[in-house]
């Protein structure tokens, strides 16, 4: 039996293989050359300072994020918003409220209550995201919305990793994402408040007076600690807001159109007015009972918030 003839690699096949290899190598060389040119161009551009003055840490963080995102293949525009909600634009008035001064707090509460349903009744003043404001749009929102679902998931992962790296480099804190960063800073505030304000005997005495007064007016006061007293009023209306949002979203959740989460209610200004009227009444009662308490509590609380935010490199959130 004759063995089958072996197919030899002829000059034609060898030429084709060499041509193919040369084409791929040339292509790779072209990719590398253009890439190096693009990187040089990108690095050569002068960097405009984002903010001058106290927000340099945040600026450094944004620049680290942008460089990190570039290495991971995504566009990121360093962005720090200097936008201040209209409600905080009268800086002297806002500072007076933070200092717990009765006239300023009363002026606020007479119009906005605790500031919960005012988000719907005065959406522009409180920066409700459902209305257009004069706030500058973060260019990274446009970038994120221009990605496919899969790219967006990769962008989210890269964004968290880069944010975490930037926070570590600028503050030394270990965080996993922006949300985690905010949670950690707020937990730090809670710990400081518990240690420094809840343990203050003068505040405890003023708080006891306030709690007694509120109970006399028919309000439920579950805890008499200073921080719990300050949170009590807003928490009652936050709970109402949350329940309302959940009731509004229930049909869509049950139909499977929305994930089972808490949602903000969709309220027009007119719809929010009855809720706000009740909230204003409760807020004024709360202020009347806590007039002396807030004068002592608010400055300490504002100082703790400032300290924690500076410690966590979130000073751009202070206004």
């Amino acid at each position, binding site marked *: 039996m004759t063995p089958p003839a072996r197919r030899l690699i002829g000059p034609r*096949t060898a030429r*084709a*293989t060499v*041509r*193919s*290899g040369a*084409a*791929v190598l040339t*292509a*790779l060389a*072209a*990719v*590398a050359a*253009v*890439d190096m040119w*693009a*990187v040089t161009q*990108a690095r050569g551009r002068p960097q405009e300072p984002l903010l001058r003055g106290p927000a340099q840490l945040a600026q450094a963080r944004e620049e680290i994020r942008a460089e990190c995102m*570039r*290495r*991971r*293949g*995504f*566009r990121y525009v360093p962005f720090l918003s200097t936008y201040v909600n209209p409600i905080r634009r009268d800086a002297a008035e806002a500072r007076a409220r933070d200092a717990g001064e009765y006239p300023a707090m009363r002026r606020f509460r007479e119009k906005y209550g605790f500031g919960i349903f005012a988000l719907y009744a005065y959406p522009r003043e409180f920066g409700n995201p459902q209305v257009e404001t004069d706030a500058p749009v973060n260019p990274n929102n446009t*970038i994120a*919305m*221009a*990605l*496919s*679902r*899969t*790219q*967006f*998931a*990769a*962008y989210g992962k*890269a964004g968290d990793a880069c944010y975490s790296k930037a926070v570590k480099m600028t503050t030394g804190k270990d965080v996993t994402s922006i949300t985690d960063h905010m949670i950690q800073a707020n937990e730090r505030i809670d710990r400081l408040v518990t240690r420094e304000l809840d343990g203050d005997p003068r505040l405890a005495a003023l708080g006891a007076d306030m709690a007694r007064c509120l109970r006399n007016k028919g309000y439920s006061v579950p805890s008499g600690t200073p921080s719990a007293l300050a949170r009590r009023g807003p928490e009652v209306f936050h709970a109402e807001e949350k329940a309302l949002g959940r009731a509004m979203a229930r049909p869509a959740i049950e139909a499977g*159109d*929305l*994930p089972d989460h808490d949602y903000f209610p969709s309220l027009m200004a007119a719809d929010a007015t009855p809720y706000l009227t009740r909230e204003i009444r409760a807020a004024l009662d709360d202020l009347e009972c806590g007039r002396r308490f807030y004068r002592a509590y608010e400055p300490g609380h504002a100082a703790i918030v400032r300290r924690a935010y500076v410690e966590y490199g979130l000073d751009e959130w202070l206004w």
Partner: protein
Amino acid sequence: MRRPTALTGPERWYRWLLRAYPREYRAAHGEEMIATLLETDGDGRAVPWPREALALVAGGARARALGAGRGPAWADGVHLGVTVLAVLNLGVLVPYARSVPVWTALAAVTLFAVTRGWVRTALGLVALVGGKVLAVVLGHPWLDQTLLPVFSDGVWNAPPLYSRGGPVAPVAAYALAFLGLAVLAARHGPLRRRTWRWWLAVPLTAGVDPASWLMVESGSPRAAVRVGLELALLCLAVWAGRVAADPRWALAAAIALAPAVVACLEGVTTSRADVLVSFHGFSAGRQELSHLGVLVLLTVAAAAVPLHARRHALL
């Protein structure tokens, strides 16, 4: 060769109409056919009868179909399908040429290599550009600093590169081209050169990725011409399949259509799983499904007609 000025009226018309026939056929039988036509033209009309003219054009087209149907059907069908995929893959990148110049150029070289029949070269280039496309659709950096999203150049006004639909369909377009070329490379046979006219389809497919292939923007003449060309080519595939009793055009159409079908299936799967599909996804609507239905129907018809047709003898 006779000078055109020396031609009589009917002869000039017959010579013009005979251009419907392939060049080789004209060289072999052209003069004989002219002589026969002039001889049978009893009434001495300056212009042939429309019926006669139509018969000549149809005969020429049939001759071209039979000529194109020579050689192994599957290899030629795969090559034609890969050519169309190379046109589509290049078209997707054209509006982003300033952001991804090297990849667009490589896709153009790939199309050139495919049309010239340089299978191995095209295979390497498809693997390279396909690898980059995989990286882009998954959002991972690879080889160079292509930053996502890749926005289109000013004149095109196209959405960002591969921002619609899932990752499977764009990768399928390259994977199919790669597999087709790998099969052709394993075959070791010569391939015919494809016409340069395929390059004319590139501007029509500019920015059209598999997920947006089925969408037809209202009021866009480019989209209208593209859809018209698709339908014309598929109708031609059905007709040629019937005349030549050959499935190669159906095979090519199926290969070229596969990424759009994958994109549609992917859209259906993801739209059920993701509430954010309206922002980041693609979901086929009634118009897209109707468009796909027509394309699939014509492809099936092109595949079915050779089963019932006998190869027509030429004249």
